[in-house]
Each structure stands twice: as structure tokens, then as C-alpha cells.
């Protein structure tokens, strides 16, 4: 049984990833290109400033893949494989939850587990460390940023699992509705504490040293030694669009996983339940 569940999870994950890729190709790529254009022009402005100041001008690294490959193939492979991985994790969570979280229909459980994946793996980490387009993010902090993102993700998934266990326990005393509300409240409080304790990206030591106290790593306007702005800060509309589409793509992917898996789970599990009912 577990093999059949996992196989179906992987298949719907691949399909969900494909949907998210189509969405990304249409909506995200123009924003990514706008961000890269911003970055190139900013680098030129920075190089001009450095040259005027007599500083060595840093050169760009070699281009391994063209933008066309990255924007059409790389993003597709990345998102589809991500969908496969999430479909597999979803299937395992589904298998573990089966029959352990109350009397849920197979398809209801499918949608709930997918919702949990969206929340725990993507949305809650996003609230603290939102997705950023190219040109936002300092090279010196990539190690810390990667670690913080993983810590936030692990916390959020662990708290979500904890909330489900807590809700199950409380259900006997307070009933399903109240137990669910209490468990959700506990999740919000504990997650909020974790978010408050983890540093904002602008507060990282390397960033405070180089840029002063800021909330994030979003590029500020570039100024010449006289303090005049020679190049603007990162365009706010591009940033908002990119983040909105990032959330939308993950919502599409997880919704597809939950909704495509639902009928498969009904067919896989319902006959068995009916047989049990008949015996």
C-alpha cells in the first residue's frame, strides 16, 4: 500500500510542478528579467563610481548557462523536480496520517495534507524570509541566509506536526472544533516566537558592517561621494510582483497535489473501506 501511495504522490507532484512551471514561465520570468536588468545597470553605475574613485573594478564571473537556458529549461527542470520531491513528501505524510487523524475521507485528508505542506514548507518560512528576485541578496551572507531559511522551515514543519498532535489530544476534552482552534492558536504563538527570535537579514553582522542597520538586503539607491543618487533602489513593483507570483505558484502547486491526489486516494482506499463495511 505504501508503495502505491508514494508512486501516486510522485506522479501528481510532477504534474503539479509542471503547472507551476507554466505559470512561472508566463508570470515570473518577466519580473526575473527586470531584476537582472536592474542588477546589470546597477553594476555599471557602481563600476563607474569605482573607476572615478580609482578603485579596482570587479569583473563578473563567467556565464555557465545562457539566460535563455536558465529562463526556459533550468527553471522548468528545477520546479518540476521540486514538485516531485514535494509530492513524495506529501505521500509519506499522507500515509502516516491515514487513519491516525480522525475519521476523514481519503480525499478530504488529501487536501488537508497538501494545505499543511504549503503552509509548513513554503508559506510560513516565506513570512519571515520572503522569496527574492535576482540582485537582492549579498554574496557574503549566502551561507547564513541558507541556514536561517532551513531553520525557519524545519521549525515551521515541526510546529505544524506538533499542532496536529496537540489537536488530537485536546479533541477528547474540548471537541473537534475547539481543539482545532486551540492547536492553531498554539501554532501561531510558537511560530511567532521563533520568527521574533531569528534575525532579520539586514541585521546580520556582515550587512550591518557594510550597509548600516537595515531591515533587509533589498538594494538601496546608489550614491556618489557627494551623496547624490546616481542609481535608484530596487523597484518596489518588481519586488511585489515577483513575491506575489512566487506565492501564487506554490499555491497552484500544492493545490494541484491535493486535488489531483484526492480522487486517486478515493479509488485506492474507498473499495477497501467498503469491503470492511460490508464484512
Amino acid at each position, binding site marked *: 500500500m505504501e508503495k502505491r501511495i508514494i508512486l501516486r504522490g510522485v506522479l501528481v507532484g510532477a504534474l503539479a510542478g509542471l503547472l507551476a512551471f507554466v505559470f512561472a514561465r508566463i508570470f515570473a520570468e518577466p519580473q526575473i528579467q527586470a531584476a537582472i536588468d536592474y542588477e546589470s545597470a546597477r553594476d555599471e553605475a557602481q563600476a563607474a563610481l569605482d573607476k572615478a574613485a580609482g578603485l579596482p573594478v570587479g569583473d563578473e564571473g563567467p556565464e555557465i548557462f545562457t539566460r535563455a537556458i536558465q529562463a526556459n529549461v533550468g527553471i522548468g527542470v*528545477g520546479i518540476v523536480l*521540486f514538485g516531485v520531491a514535494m509530492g*513524495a513528501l506529501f505521500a509519506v505524510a499522507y500515509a502516516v496520517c491515514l487513519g491516525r487523524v480522525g475519521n476523514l475521507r*481519503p480525499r478530504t485528508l488529501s487536501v488537508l495534507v497538501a494545505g499543511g505542506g504549503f503552509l509548513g514548507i513554503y508559506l510560513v518560512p516565506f513570512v519571515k524570509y520572503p522569496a527574492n528576485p535576482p540582485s537582492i541578496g549579498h554574496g557574503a551572507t549566502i551561507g547564513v541566509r541558507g541556514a536561517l531559511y532551513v531553520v525557519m522551515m524545519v521549525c515551521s514543519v515541526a510546529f505544524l506536526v506538533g499542532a496536529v498532535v496537540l489537536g488530537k489530544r485536546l479533541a477528547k476534552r474540548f471537541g473537534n472544533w475547539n481543539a482545532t482552534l486551540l492547536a492553531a492558536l498554539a501554532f501561531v504563538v510558537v511560530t511567532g516566537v521563533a520568527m521574533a527570535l531569528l534575525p532579520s537579514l539586514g541585521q546580520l553582522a556582515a550587512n550591518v558592517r557594510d550597509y548600516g542597520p537595515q531591515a533587509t538586503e533589498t538594494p538601496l539607491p546608489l550614491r556618489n561621494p557627494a551623496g547624490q543618487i546616481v542609481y535608484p533602489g530596487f523597484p518596489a513593483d518588481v519586488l511585489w510582483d515577483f513575491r506575489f507570483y512566487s506565492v501564487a505558484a506554490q499555491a497552484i502547486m500544492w493545490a494541484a497535489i491535493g486535488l489531483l491526489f484526492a480522487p486517486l486516494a478515493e479509488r485506492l482506499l474507498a473499495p477497501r473501506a467498503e469491503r470492511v463495511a460490508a464484512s
Partner: protein
Amino acid sequence: MSTIPVTTAVPTPVVLPLPKAMLWLGGTVLLALAMYYFIGIDQGATSVFGDNMYIHEFVHDARHFLGFPCH
């Protein structure tokens, strides 16, 4: 499984006996986490296959768009 008493109208299907399913479930989780790592994190902070940027550069746009920290 056929010994489960049916006391509810709502079908509650099989509980997978975890020790038996552990191999497949655990193996799947490990593989999926490895994929998560290679798509999202490898060759940013840490690098498994040497100090190059092939994976990072290839899935670069996906990495940004899926919410992972990047350059």
C-alpha cells in the same frame, strides 16, 4: 485490516503499520530531502560535487522563485 470494527459511517481507511512501511517511507523522505537540497541549497552555502556552480546556475531562476535564498 478486516478486523477493524466499523462503528462510524465515515470511512476511515487503513492505518499503515509503520514498522513495516518504514523502509519505503524513510527512503522516500531521504530522497525527497536530497532533491530539496540540490534544487534549493547546494552550491550556494555548501557544495557536494566540487566547488563549481553548474547546478546552482542551471536551476537558478527556480531557486529564486521557489523562495530559496540566492545571490
